[in-house]
């Protein structure tokens, strides 16, 4: 089983910890967890390369999740890295926009570790 390097993007440090905890409770082996508090910080982390997965909130200051997602299209290091968007809003329009922009899935808060597992593991291919 491959250990994963993931990037969690959320303006709330508590939410970043909750997402990391849920990933571990879902049984994923994380070798490294990088954090960013907005899309601009996240973009800088992505450009360093080596990520297996990105989980990003949509509503954030500076650069929101949808803008971040669209920016990834031009980043070589982001190719093949699945992105899962996390939202509280319950807005179908924003979910559709995220999926159209390249997100591989989404999680709606609140979520359980089981729901995280259901959404995340199919995207990891042979990595898990």
């Amino acid at each position, binding site marked *: 089983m491959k250990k994963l390097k993931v990037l969690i993007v959320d303006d709330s440090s*508590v*939410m970043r910890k909750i997402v990391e*905890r849920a990933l571990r409770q879902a049984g994923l082996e994380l070798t490294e967890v990088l954090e960013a508090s907005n899309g601009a910080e996240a973009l800088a982390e992505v450009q360093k390369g080596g990520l297996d997965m990105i989980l990003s909130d949509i509503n954030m*200051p500076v650069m929101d999740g949808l803008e971040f997602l669209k920016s990834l299209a031009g980043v070589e290091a982001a190719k093949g890295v699945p992105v899962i968007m996390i939202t509280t809003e319950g807005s*179908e329009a*924003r979910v559709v926009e995220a999926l159209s922009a390249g997100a591989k899935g989404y999680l709606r808060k609140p979520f359980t570790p089981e729901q995280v597992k259901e959404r995340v593991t199919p995207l990891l291919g042979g990595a898990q």
Partner: protein
Amino acid sequence: MSSFSKTASPAAVAFDPSWKTILECAAVEVFEMMAGVRPELNSASTGEPTGETTAMVGMAGALCGMTTLRCAKATAGRFAALMLGEAAASDPSSSGDALGELCNMVAGNFKSKISNLADHCMLSVPTVITGQDYSMETSEPTQGILVPLLFEGQPLWVSLIIHT
């Protein structure tokens, strides 16, 4: 939050007192999923909300107002411990942030259950107030719903305050 301006003149959704049941359901779901404990309705509660920690999330668009959660400091610490681990309970910052995130999720879960709100009502980032001696006033008339809950036997209030 950066998204208030993205909703173009949505039709206002009228306040409905029957939302109390929906707000209760939304809150119970959030606490059960995120903290692993199902709160109960505190049917014995008759007084005003008390407690040193209040989280608020603003709502704008088809519905304007705010959602609040209020509880004792120790209860907020308990939420943080359940969501993040025991060490978080003694960190005031984590306790407040945890309550803020719960409030955000309650507001989001509530609006996702109301037709026309999910796509037409935006939420602010949470604000957390510490202290008991305060009152909230708005420049617009409001209507409200208050849901008293018990979480592991401790009181917790969820409110929805809507500008009318």
